[in-house]
């Protein structure tokens, strides 16, 4: 079975969003700060009044790792994993699909997509996006 996210009261909104093919970013309704990974309170003003915005899904590769070993089912190797700077300013980890390992580079523009695995698990992923940075 594909590894699952760990869903808690604090991050359920995010994974519910992914299930609906939306990439959400937690927002403080008091000071409007965005934060990821989510937390129970605003990291800046300590408000518990949090909601979320839908990200544009556009961003750039901040860094990447290409997993070769050990091979762990059900992943295909080499597996390109990226840390994406979203244009809203937060970062998120994801798989990068459709790009050869030799072609990945820091700064590469990417855009979000979604995949459904095991019939009931939806995850975000990123693909290369066109255009300049």
């Amino acid at each position, binding site marked *: 079975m*594909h*590894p*699952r*996210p*760990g*869903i*808690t009261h*604090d*991050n359920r909104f995010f994974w519910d969003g992914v299930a609906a093919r939306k990439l959400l970013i937690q927002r403080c309704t008091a000071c409007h700060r965005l934060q*990821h*990974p989510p937390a129970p309170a605003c*990291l800046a003003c300590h408000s518990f009044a949090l909601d979320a915005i839908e990200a544009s899904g556009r961003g750039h590769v*901040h*860094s*990447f*790792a*290409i*997993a*070769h*070993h*050990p091979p*762990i089912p059900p*992943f295909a190797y*080499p*597996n390109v*994993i990226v*840390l994406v700077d979203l244009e809203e300013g*937060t*970062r998120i*980890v*994801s*798989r990068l699909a459709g790009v050869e*390992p030799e072609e990945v580079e*820091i700064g590469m523009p990417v855009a979000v997509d979604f995949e459904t695995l095991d019939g009931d*698990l939806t*995850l975000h*992923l990123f693909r290369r996006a066109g255009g300049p940075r």
Partner: protein
Amino acid sequence: MSRSGFASRAAIVGIGQTEFSKDSRRSELRLAVEAVLSALADAGLDPRDVDGMCTFAMDNNPEIEVQRAIGGGELRFFSRVHFGGGAACATVMQAALAVAAGVADVVVCYRAMNERSVQRFGIGVQQLRLAQPTTESAHFGWYAPFGLLTPAGWVAMQAQRYLHDYGATTEDFGRVSVACRRHAATNPAAWFYGRPITLEDHQASRWIVRPLRLLDCCQESDGAVAVVVTSLERARDLRQPSAVIRAAAQGASDDQQMMTSYYRSGIGDLPEMALVARQLYEQSGLGAKDFETAVIYDHFTPFVLAQLEAFGFCGRGEAKDFMRGGNIELGGALPINTHGGQLGEAYIHGMNGVAEAVRQVRGTAVNQIDPVNHVLVTAGTGVPTSALILGRA
């Protein structure tokens, strides 16, 4: 001169260890007991003298089980430190604090594990149970679904950015491996005794998680290490020269995560280790120029570069230049990991590095630096961490 309440008030007076192997063929508890008894014998202390114990939150051997098995008596202080190998030097800090505060007289710090034959860390969090996640397992749930499952993978993400930010190459990572394996090659206790490597060997080794190759990753080991801490006053009457705890500190920094501090402005650096460095230097009045050798935590080579920078041995991004010409090897300006480190000797979560620092202070290391006045020892990186300065009495 001490600038804090506990610095230079306690010393490591005994060290003990098992052999380092890939299959110990005995229980982790037995390994712990062997190392603790060996450390006490080294110090010239009896198990009945032990009234404090400290280990890692990850250790599988409860303090009371170890105390019972060594034939110890009443325990007045027992403590554990979280966050994997980041605990290594912090166990000694806990002991020094307890001794300085007068709540314990003789504190044993230990780490024992069958980390190759039973519970391999290198496979990562494949068995993560996320049906009812805790805060910690939910944390790993941000990475596991994408295949970012192993310690090498978590480090690789930061290492790739380090290369980009500072113009370093994977050969610069390799120089750490070459140094550690050279030192291990002349250490009979090291798993890689007699087996040095070249930079070409490093570059030819296979990818684990790019940009990390096999020879950027430390071993998985079975074994145990223990050290004994007591007051300077009591230490004077004991068998071995004291390794005085000149300074000890812990650090977790802004938006600290467990192995995935990916959300800071600069992810190639180790601000938690810079925080530790500031405290060590403040407590001791010492600086980077005062160490003749250092034990720099080397579970993965890239973070050795970031640590050399965090402690001010060179400027930020300049470790690649600092390490050139064998500068971190025997005969260089700062020989590191003279026992071979975790890349070469064994991976005992950093506690074998603490023992090596004690040997350097005593003058009994197999690759002895002469003279040694102060040794820096650091703990696990990528996690909330710790470090020590040990010195001669």
